[in-house]
């Protein structure tokens, strides 16, 4: 069985914008995950989601990986951005939009 850390690193590295959440974009299973999706949709972001409820290893593993105790968690270009509170603050200040627009390292190469 793959180490959850490797599995998470693989997901984070291979998706520009990825949200670890409870439920799916269409059917979020928690208010905080729902708020995170609403923010990403509002910004017109193209993102992937990972439903941690479908994978107990990732659900536990992502908390250790990010050193962050709650779900959802947003990763952009391999970097941990934060949970839904930080997403909301960054959305309101315009920082999130800037971050999502920034070209990925591979695009620049």
């Amino acid at each position, binding site marked *: 069985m793959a180490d959850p850390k490797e599995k998470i690193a693989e997901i984070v590295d291979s998706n520009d914008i990825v949200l670890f959440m409870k439920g799916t974009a269409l059917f979020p299973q928690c208010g905080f995950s729902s708020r995170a999706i609403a923010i990403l949709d509002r910004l017109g972001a193209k993102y992937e989601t990972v439903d941690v409820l479908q994978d107990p290893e990732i659900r536990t593993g992502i*908390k250790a990986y990010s*050193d*962050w*105790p709650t779900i959802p968690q947003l990763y952009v270009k391999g970097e941990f951005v934060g949970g839904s509170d*930080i997403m909301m603050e*960054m959305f309101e200040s315009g920082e999130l939009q800037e971050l999502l627009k920034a070209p990925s390292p591979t695009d620049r190469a």
Partner: protein
Amino acid sequence: MAMAASEVERLIRAAIPDAEVTIRDLAGDGDHYAARVVSKSFAGLSRIQQHQAVYAALGGRVGGELHALQLETAVRLTETSHG
């Protein structure tokens, strides 16, 4: 499991002594809180690090004992908040 708002506040103050802590009970069930924490010690820390400092103060309760803690942190800029 639920926790009293006063206990949440006490734990944050124990780890971050200068913290101004404001807590709201969002659902009235002692399990969904919103907290605003303002401290000089957050200066120079990223948002992620500021939130991690509060989570650390709560010693692993967030995401477990405390289902939801909506968190807002800010750096206190001046020594005295009352001019």
